[in-house]
């Protein structure tokens, strides 16, 4: 079991993720400016790192996160953790072992550190349906469930959209249902993990 405090974002990883490709690109631009102002080498130095940086920013994080999710599932199975419920969100993966009352967490911005802890460490649990607006404008663009572990608030989205949906729309109802279900599962695990 993990005794370390839960950390959602690894600052080093986040900064490296953003700035390392930018720095490499800048260095290549400088090299091109100083030594290869024309020719094939100039094209390679100007285009190559720029394209690779964009690819990295778009897909690199997701690829690492996906790989780490698979690895965590494997590690949990090997350690005897019973994966009763697994919820994959855009920024966080949460796995619940309802038998032993423990949870496993993995964050998008901290993919090299996974946390397995007793569900008893969850201090608070609730659903946020994102309801906003009045009258015919009432609706939501995000449904999530939230948990507070060691004073750290973790939001797990069950539905997100770039537009507002009516509260009785199928998308919102599905999101609320998933969030309600996960909160109940976590409450049961918490009762066992205490």
């Amino acid at each position, binding site marked *: 079991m993990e005794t370390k405090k839960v950390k959602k974002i690894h600052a080093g990883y986040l900064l490296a993720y953003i700035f390392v490709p930018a720095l490499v690109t800048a260095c290549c631009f400088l090299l091109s400016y100083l030594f290869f102002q024309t020719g094939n080498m100039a094209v390679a130095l100007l285009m190559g790192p720029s394209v690779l940086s964009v690819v990295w920013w778009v897909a690199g994080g997701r690829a690492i996160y996906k790989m780490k999710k698979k690895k965590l599932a494997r590690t949990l199975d090997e350690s005897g953790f019973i994966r009763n419920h697994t919820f994959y969100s855009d920024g966080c993966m949460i796995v619940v072992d309802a038998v032993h009352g423990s949870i496993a967490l993995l964050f998008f911005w901290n993919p090299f550190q996974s946390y397995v802890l007793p569900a008893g460490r969850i201090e608070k649990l609730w659903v946020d349906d994102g309801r906003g607006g009045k009258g015919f404008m009432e609706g939501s663009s995000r449904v999530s469930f939230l948990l507070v572990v060691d004073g750290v608030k973790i939001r797990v989205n069950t539905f997100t959209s770039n537009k507002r949906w009516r509260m009785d729309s199928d998308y919102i109802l599905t999101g609320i249902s*998933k969030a309600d*279900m996960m909160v109940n599962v976590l409450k049961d695990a918490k009762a066992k993990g205490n």
Partner: protein
Amino acid sequence: MGVLKKMRAVFHDDWCRECQNVMEETGRKLYMLPMTVGHYQSHREADYYKKNLRPVSRKAEIPAGVYACGIRCYRCPECGHRMTKLSIFLPVREEEKTEDMICFDQGEMDNFIW
């Protein structure tokens, strides 16, 4: 008129498919379906429902994120034709998200209901 009535009957689940009369409801039951939100799979075979439906007395007994199935039984007062309508929905707090509607009018569910 006969053709028109038959066309209208397509949109009325409680109309007899044999004689197009309004059928009377003879029973209503609520069940829980062992499928959770996000994992719904449509089934058209009566055997699946006979095997998996679990009776519940109230909607509140169904845990969050689990599908419910409301069964309504109809009987035509004119020709005696019987029909069972399954309405599969996801109960979400006070709302219901309808997922599927299945009608069995060849008596496939009779030995399960009665």
